[in-house]
């Protein structure tokens, strides 16, 4: 399954200026449902900026972002996340002085106890829901292999474990499309491979869609079905790993003339 029929994400003619610098320049691409796509490019090519535009952290100057056919351009980040678009960050943005379990529980949407009245009265429906969420989080931690760390403060965890917590947190939110910003940065190759096998499994068994920014070319070539290459904010190529790695424009961007 290279390209599904249903379109998950469509980026249409997106532009973003930082002062005089055009960070993203008329960038367009699509991600079908159930795919693992890669977004690559040299340092400063605008990859993370594209992520921040898609997730609403930055406002686009021009162009549109469609998620499942719906225009989500310039919605607030929480509104976009509520629609099922999750993300991780280049440097994990976790709740460091909270436990692993709390981090995962915070990911879950529509919790009764987030309503003031439910919280003060501590209604049974809310407590039942919390227990069910804890069970779900434990199952997830079990799969990720860190269930023994459930009550540990995240600040005390190693980098690899923190990456897993961040992924777990996004999964608790039932996101259908997950943007991964450098998922394997700082991980040893064996662990990075396991991490990406798990991503692939999530795609195969749960139909989740992934778009990842990556610097590690081995990862990109092995795990992404389709690659979009940015340079100076412009899309310079896209295609299968073979096509892209033989593209003269890409080779030039990475190696120079």
């Amino acid at each position: 399954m290279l390209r599904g029929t249903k379109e998950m994400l469509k980026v249409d003619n997106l532009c973003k200026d930082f002062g005089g610098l055009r960070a993203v320049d008329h960038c367009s691409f699509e991600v079908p449902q159930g795919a693992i796509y890669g977004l690559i490019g040299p340092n400063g090519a605008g990859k993370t900026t594209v992520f921040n535009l898609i997730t609403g952290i930055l406002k686009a100057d021009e162009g549109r972002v469609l998620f499942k056919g719906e225009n989500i351009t310039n919605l607030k980040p929480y509104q976009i996340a509520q629609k099922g678009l999750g993300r991780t960050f280049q440097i994990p943005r976790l709740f460091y002085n909270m436990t692993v379990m709390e981090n995962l529980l915070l990911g879950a949407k529509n919790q009764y106890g987030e309503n003031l009245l439910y919280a003060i009265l501590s209604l049974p429906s809310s407590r039942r829901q919390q227990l069910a969420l804890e069970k779900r989080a434990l199952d997830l931690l079990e799969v990720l292999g860190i269930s023994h760390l459930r009550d540990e403060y995240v600040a005390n965890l190693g980098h690899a474990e923190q990456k897993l917590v961040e992924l777990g947190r996004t999964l608790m939110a039932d996101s259908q499309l997950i943007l991964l910003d450098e998922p394997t940065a700082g991980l040893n190759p064996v662990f990075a491979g396991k991490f990406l096998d798990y991503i692939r499994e999530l795609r195969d068994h749960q139909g989740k869609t992934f778009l990842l920014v990556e610097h590690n070319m081995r990862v990109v070539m092995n795990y992404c079905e389709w690659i979009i290459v940015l340079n100076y904010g412009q899309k310079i190529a896209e295609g299968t790993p073979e096509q892209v790695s033989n593209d003269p424009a890409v080779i030039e961007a990475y190696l120079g003339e």
Partner: protein
Amino acid sequence: MLPTGVVIHVLVFVCIYAILAVGLNLIMGCAALFTIANAALFGVGAYTSALLALAGYPFWVDFLAAVFMAGLISFLIGWPTLNLVGDYLAVATMGLGEILVSVFRNWDAVTRGPMGLPGIPPVKVFGVVFDQPLKFLFLSAIFLLIAFLIAERLAYSPFGRVLKGIREDEVAVNSLGKNTFRFKMWVFIIGGAFMGGAGSLYAHYVGFIDPSSFTLWNAFFLWLIVILGGLGSNIGAVLASLAFVGIRESLRFLGLPGNITAAIQQVLFGVILIVIMIYAPRGLIPERKYVTRYKGNAEGRQSL
């Protein structure tokens, strides 16, 4: 040894300040919203309550009006400022808080300005008049208990978890689909309402209010209590109120001249602040750790 009357008087103040501290702890300890408008909101509650009581309204009416008014003003302060972060929020709330104090000081027709409002009647509920300090201590202890229980529920609920998430990393909370502005606004209103309620009790207990009780020094005194008690810890806020209000009010009964007492107080608090920040940076009683409640085994699946 201090006479019993003084001890009771001090304990009433401890209860009132503990309600303030617990309210501020929700805002500042849980959500890390560093507001300086707290003393002014205390004043909003006190003035609302005093004016209505002097106009002849019963206690429960002026108390609820004080709570509501402080909540409403919190909302109005929060609306333009809660998108600011850290120091900016502190500066903006300081300015708005000072505007409120200016209103107390200059709206002569209503607040009588610096002359203050004397003769605020004691609390009367179900025919019982709380005119003795001991009686009032019972009343304020009950209010403290209610405030404490509400704050505990909130701090350790999913609502409180979102607040603590905002404290840790607001961008991340937003990226999980939660409207952080809404949560910040609610905790601002709830915490402000606590302060309004405390103001009402204060006005009725002391019987006289003037703008000097609601100044910046009081705002920072509350900061001191919440920080030293342990950010995010309600029980810490209550115990720190006991310690600091105890010290502050007891010093007044030593019979020293006023200017010396004030100086001793500030030096003492400064030293205590430094010592605690060095030896117990998380406060006297740090925030309680969350422990997973679900005890069943997770499904055994192949792990990563």
